[in-house]
């Protein structure tokens, strides 16, 4: 019996089909994998997908967090209330998405604005985590834009933490693997949108093809501008080649207002240098040194001790011994080992 391949999802709103469906996200759809240079060219190009988070529509209910926990079967610790709305206190290996709350006193309108941003992996087109990762195939990018962590290949080194411009990956304390939002790749694979988008009661989170999401965002931005948010705009940072999780922001000119969302994220030059030419140049330098040493060893004359050196040493030691014998000291004892 063959099961039909699931279609590519274009919305999070659709209900799942009754009949079982085969995965539509195949190993051959991987276009980039960490620490693997020569991937076979993919046979097909999936439609680029994206999740759009309209910050202006978010009511901070955390249904997305609950849906994420439920779908991914994670178990975040129950923490203490320390007087802020964030719960848990930060992204954790068990909490892939987090509502971050900012109280912003707008100096222009003198109004208090409550900015709520759903934080989580941005699924960069040019992912810093994937660039930094040393374990082959631990981080992959599918041709639909999803960046996924493959725990079976992950070694838990934490290089992805250094690579990410958004401070997203978290290393699991007991499983020793890196964790983050998967954009529900396992749901997308069977034609479903992400759990958070599905759960959002105000449709602040929507999901679809990237083009559609950009078009949808433009509509929303127009609406916001009409309502006085002149700087409203789309957050799809080009420094990382665009992202597959995008925001509609009322203050798109100042993304950092939203709980330090980077204004212009890009992969750090340090990470690029470390992971780029430095690797090959370093490896070449070590290789040349090793081969050079071996060649020199095989071809050049070794530095050998001559009979002359031995004789001189013999003489030096014998002379010194004679001198010592002439000037005896109390502590001195007869020394000659040989006649």
């Amino acid at each position, binding site marked *: 019996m063959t099961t039909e391949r699931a279609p590519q999802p274009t919305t999070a709103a659709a209900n799942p089909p009754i009949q079982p469906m085969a995965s539509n996200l195949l190993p051959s759809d991987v276009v980039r994998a960490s620490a693997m240079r020569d991937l076979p060219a993919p046979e097909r190009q999936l439609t680029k997908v994206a999740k759009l988070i309209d910050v202006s529509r978010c009511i901070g209910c955390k249904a997305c967090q609950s849906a994420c926990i439920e779908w991914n079967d994670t178990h975040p610790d129950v923490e203490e209330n320390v007087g802020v709305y964030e719960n848990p206190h930060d992204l954790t290996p068990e909490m892939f998405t987090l509502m971050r709350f900012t109280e912003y006193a707008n100096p222009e309108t003198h109004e208090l604005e409550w900015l709520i941003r759903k934080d989580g992996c941005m699924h960069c087109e040019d992912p810093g985590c994937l660039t930094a990762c040393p374990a082959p195939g631990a981080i992959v990018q599918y041709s639909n834009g999803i960046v996924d962590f493959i725990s079976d290949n992950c070694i838990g080194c934490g290089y992805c933490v250094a690579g990410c411009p958004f401070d997203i990956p978290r290393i699991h304390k007991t499983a020793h693997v890196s964790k983050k939002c998967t954009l529900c790749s396992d749901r997308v694979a069977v034609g479903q949108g992400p759990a958070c988008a599905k759960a959002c009661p105000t449709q602040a989170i929507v999901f679809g093809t990237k083009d559609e999401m950009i078009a949808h965002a433009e509509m929303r931005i127009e609406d916001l501008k009409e309502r006085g948010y002149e700087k409203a705009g789309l957050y799809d940072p080009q420094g990382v080649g665009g992202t597959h999780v995008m925001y509609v922001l009322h203050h798109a000119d100042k993304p950092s207002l939203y709980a330090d969302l980077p204004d212009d994220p890009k992969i750090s030059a340090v990470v690029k240098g470390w992971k780029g030419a430095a690797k090959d140049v370093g490896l070449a330098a070590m290789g040349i040194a090793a081969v050079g040493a071996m060649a020199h060893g095989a071809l050049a004359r070794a530095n050998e001790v001559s009979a002359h050196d031995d004789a001189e040493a013999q003489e030096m030691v014998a002379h010194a011994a004679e001198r010592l014998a002439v000037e005896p*000291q109390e502590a001195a004892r007869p*020394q000659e080992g040989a006649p």
Partner: protein
Amino acid sequence: MTEERQYSAPGDEIETRKPVTVSRYRGITRLNHWVTAFTMIGLILSGMALFHPSLYFLTGLFGGGPTTRWLHPLMGILLFFSFLLLFLQMWRLNLPKREDAEWLANIKEVVKGEEENLPELGKYNAGQKFVFWGMSGLILVMIVTGVMIWEQYFPGLVSIPVRRVAVAVHALSAVAAVLIFIVHVYAAIWTRGTIRAMTRGTVTGGWAYRHHRKWLRELAGRRKTDPAE
């Protein structure tokens, strides 16, 4: 009432006189050296595996990627302390001396194997001193940056921007350390008669006369045992 040692370390002595053999490293120093050496080799192999994708297969030597990731920093700690013990035994005789400049200026003669025209040296020549201080500095840098990026035990020790610099510096230092390691091993092989100093602990009189004459001269002028040592 021991004579001052200027060019030699405690334990260095003329062992036999006919033929001349000279004790260069005591058993404890040799053990210390080989623990350091094997730990260093383990660190290089495991570090290389994480340094370049084409060498990732080396993780197989350690039981896979996660085990390598776990083991590498532990070996680093062992190396740090093992090297520290070596450092404490050797730093004094590795301080730069006037004759080092002359030796370096005539490095060509050294490479040609014609040491006759060079100044007499103590226990270490400028090349050995360079290896010593180079390794000392790099190991210090690597232990500091290594702890900064040790995800398992120090995940939040430094900020992410600092961590990025730490990984890069750690990798660069490692490349430099490997280069020094190659110089060290190769020089020991190329200069015949050197290896036995770290295996049996002794060198021949001719070797000592040829490469470290001041050291030999000092030992020859000493009574065999130092009561104070």
